[in-house]
């Protein structure tokens, strides 16, 4: 694959007078110029509120905005456009699910299965749902490599299992979970399966129809789109049955002070003026990425990830956290000599942007018996030079903390 770095204006920025090596992609990705320009173009030529407008601007905005559902439907291989709900991000999507499913479907002593390695966004909303309903949160363990313990997962399943909500890729360990198998097994007990694809949406092809999951969610800002926008995919039959999450304009059919009736999905779940420009930006981000085949993308990312792991492995006193059987473009590590925050500060001085901390996965940190890790995460626009710069900066950290 040819280098696409020049498509992303921010990547040619100097940081502290240094070349920028942006390796914080698991936190948020950068936007190609095509997306940035499209957003400006939108604001300068067709912004208006959507859906209820008869005038040209509103029609054009509505058209551009609704068109993105089709793009997302195709990108994740959903069956119908009205299975694509716009949210403000993965976090809202999971809150929507936890709230709505708790009302409809989860009862006392039911069980909700997650894993040790979940992001807070896929833990706390379920804790809240458990508190409200009296259901139990069941945590599937991971093994020493950071892989889901599939046997343990299977033995946790039972007719009490109402929800299985699992991340596709761990944002700390980079482990790719065997969601095909997990979904299939969970389905045997009639459980509702939810995939948190926040970390996978930019990195793996996703086919919700083939997976057979009931819901899948991701955030636009993790796939080169704007912040404040996310997608919740849900099977239409569920969406029809579920009560709304937020209420207000646009999600209703009729309102009177006595009685309100709700619109059909996806609108039922989209109260208020949506993030019109955010959605349109996401559409352009998908277009940008779709110019490359998955073969190209996977080849490039896999070889770069391999280079990252190999390079880090040669650094004495550095320990990579987890050794998953399938790894995505993420590596967490610690140094004997320095705390992750100190690493991050020194790396930053070298122009290397990584993340340090608990990565919104405190229970996993507890499990790993680590207060924090340093995390480098790749995107398609990264190259070997970025990784070399990382490794040099880590050596400097060791020098300071020798």
């Amino acid at each position, binding site marked *: 694959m040819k280098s696409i770095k020049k498509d992303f204006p921010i990547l040619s920025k100097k940081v502290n007078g240094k070349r920028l090596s942006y390796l914080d992609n698991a936190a948020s990705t950068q936007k190609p110029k095509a997306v940035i320009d499209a957003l400006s173009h939108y604001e300068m030529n067709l912004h208006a509120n959507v*859906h*209820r*407008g008869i005038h040209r601007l509103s*029609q054009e905005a*509505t*058209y551009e905005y609704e068109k993105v559902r089709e793009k997302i439907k195709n990108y994740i291989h959903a069956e119908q456009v009205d299975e694509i709900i716009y949210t403000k991000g993965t976090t809202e999507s999971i809150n929507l699910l936890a709230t709505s499913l708790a009302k409809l479907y989860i009862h006392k002593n039911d069980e909700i299965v997650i894993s040790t390695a979940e992001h807070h966004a896929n833990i706390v909303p379920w804790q809240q749902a458990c508190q409200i309903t009296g259901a139990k949160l069941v945590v599937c363990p991971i093994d020493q490599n950071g892989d889901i313990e599939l046997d343990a997962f299977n033995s946790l399943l039972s007719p009490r299992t109402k929800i299985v909500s699992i991340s596709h890729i761990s944002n700390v360990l980079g482990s790719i979970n065997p969601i095909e198998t997990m979904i299939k097994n969970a389905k045997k007990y009639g459980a509702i399966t939810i995939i948190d694809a926040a970390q996978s949406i930019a990195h793996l092809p996703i086919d919700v129809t083939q997976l057979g999951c009931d819901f899948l969610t991701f955030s636009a800002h993790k796939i080169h789109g704007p912040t404040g926008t996310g997608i919740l995919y849900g099977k239409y039959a569920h969406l029809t049955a579920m009560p709304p999450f937020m209420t207000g304009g646009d999600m209703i*059919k*009729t309102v009177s002070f006595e009685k309100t009736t709700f*619109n*059909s999905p996806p609108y039922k779940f989209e109260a208020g003026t949506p993030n019109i420009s955010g959605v349109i930006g996401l559409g352009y981000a998908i277009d940008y990425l779709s110019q490359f085949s998955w073969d190209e993308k996977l080849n490039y990312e896999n070889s770069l990830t391999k280079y990252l792991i190999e390079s880090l492995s040669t650094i004495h006193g550095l320990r990579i956290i987890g050794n998953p059987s399938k790894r995505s473009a993420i590596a967490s590590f610690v140094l004997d000599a320095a705390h992750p925050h100190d690493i991050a500060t020194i790396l930053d001085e070298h122009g290397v942007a990584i993340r340090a901390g608990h990565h919104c996965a405190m229970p996993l940190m507890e499990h790993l018996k680590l207060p924090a890790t340093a995390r480098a995460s790749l995107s398609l626009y990264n190259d070997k030079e970025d990784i070399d710069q990382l490794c040099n900066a880590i050596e400097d950290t060791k020098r300071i903390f020798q």
Partner: protein
Amino acid sequence: MSNLIELYRDLILDHNKNPRNFGELQNATKSIEGVNPLCGDKLKLFLLLENDLIKDISFIGTGCAISVASASMMTENAKGLDVNQCLELYAMVHSMLIGKDEIDVERLGKIMALSGVKAYPSRVKCASLSWHALKQALSTNQLTASTE
């Protein structure tokens, strides 16, 4: 303004001012409500069905010129048809409204007056509301139809 002239043809304006088959049908065997949640248009269809045949049909409600004229023309055209013919006609009108090519201009006849709507995506739902309600009335037991 040629689009506007296409949209508000005399026939449309006439049906809007003097809607045919307007009012409740006392001996209706079926009635159904249609709502357009985006704009709040509402209408109610009354059908007198004998076996498969629409012996009589009427409507009440409020709406824009396009939706009233369309409902009026719909009742005029549906009266006397059987269920299958109605569904066939619905499909043809729908194709015309969304601007598909392969439509039978002759079969549509005066209904073609509504074809100006296709230049106004935001108004297609006004024109299709009554047709949508007709289809719902004939094909399901639902009592409300919605364009959304």
